[in-house]
């Protein structure tokens, strides 16, 4: 084997080892995904401390319902106040509380690109029927460059759905015996 070939092989090996190590580190960072409960009930967004405009509040709620439905990890999704939810077995409840809100300016964003950011910070909690908190996280939805202020609600809903997807996986279908 010539020296050139040896160096090329060594570099290839190092590259493969680096990529493999990166993948292992990333896999370790991700939480272990639990099997998803059968049903989820999404409650209306609470904004006790922060005064969030009602349109934003409703937009987060509606878009969270849409995005969680898109993930497909829960067999049944119930709205806040749905009477059928009480009889659903293996149900978790998603509480979302607004912790911060900065209303930016769409005009400033579109004209300057760097100013006028809108952000909504929420604290989400997933609680099971026994009252045990299964998941708890602070999430921020924002619109920084393009779009109207309401787009922050879409970003937030997507992040809520993403968090659920990262922590739960669709349960495997029962095998027939």
């Amino acid at each position, binding site marked *: 084997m010539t020296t050139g070939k040896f160096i090329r092989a060594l570099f290839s090996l190092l590259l493969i080892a680096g990529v493999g190590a990166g993948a292992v580190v990333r896999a370790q960072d991700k939480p272990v995904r639990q099997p998803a409960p059968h049903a989820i009930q999404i409650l*209306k967004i609470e*904004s006790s401390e922060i*005064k969030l*405009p*009602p*349109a934003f*509040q*409703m*937009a987060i*709620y*509606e*878009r969270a319902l849409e995005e969680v439905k898109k993930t497909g990890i829960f067999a049944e999704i*119930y*709205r*806040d*106040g*749905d*009477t*059928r939810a009480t009889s659903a077995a293996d149900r978790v409840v998603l509480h979302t509380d607004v912790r911060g809100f900065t209303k930016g300016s*769409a*005009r400033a964003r*579109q*004209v300057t690109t760097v100013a006028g950011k809108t952000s909504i910070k929420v604290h989400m909690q997933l609680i099971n029927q026994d009252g045990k908190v299964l998941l708890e996280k602070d999430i921020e939805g924002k619109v920084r460059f393009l779009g*109207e*202020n*309401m787009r922050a609600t879409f970003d937030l809903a997507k992040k809520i759905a993403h968090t659920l997807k990262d922590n739960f996986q669709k349960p495997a279908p029962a095998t027939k015996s």
Partner: protein
Amino acid sequence: MLTTNCPISLYTPPIPWRHGPRRLRPAMAGRLACLAIAGAFCLTTCSAALGQDANKPAAPNHVRSVLGFEDLKNNENCAVEVTASAIRLKGEKSTVEIATSSINDVLTGDDSARMVGGFLGTLTMFAPYSSGRFLSLFRKKLDTLTIEYRDAQGGIHGGILSMKPGFAATLKKQLVDAGAHTSIPIEDPAKPAAAPSGGAPSSKNSEKKS
């Protein structure tokens, strides 16, 4: 016969900038186009602002369904009608009817949107001399109406409508009169204590739940 040998020729050569083909340089054409667009939008904005103050219709006929109404697409224009017991939103393909007795809350708010929106608005991003950014300066005010209602199973839905400024309060009043509930009562302009002197109608917006 008079013959003259005049050295001065009567023929004058054409001045290039006067008699030549009238072509503007591309840079000049671009500047003129930008100026024309800016002028047109200034006129549109001024006329819209004057028109809003001049005539305030009693109730909106058309609104935009931003989201939350299941059979209507997001951002679909629809006709609105408030009957004795329901609000009816008629879109292009489907109609949504919500009984006023099932409405938990009606709240008004305000928002704004780009004067040039949609696909054309996206195209302006690629316009020369940052004219797309310039057009972003021109925005129109909007009123929003958030309707919180329950379905047959008791599940809460939230629908958002946007409309021209001044219409949301009128529509809210119509809904409340028809039996809808609201957590923030409508301000009566007849009451002297509630209304400040020369109270601006624009300050009525942005109700926030306590």
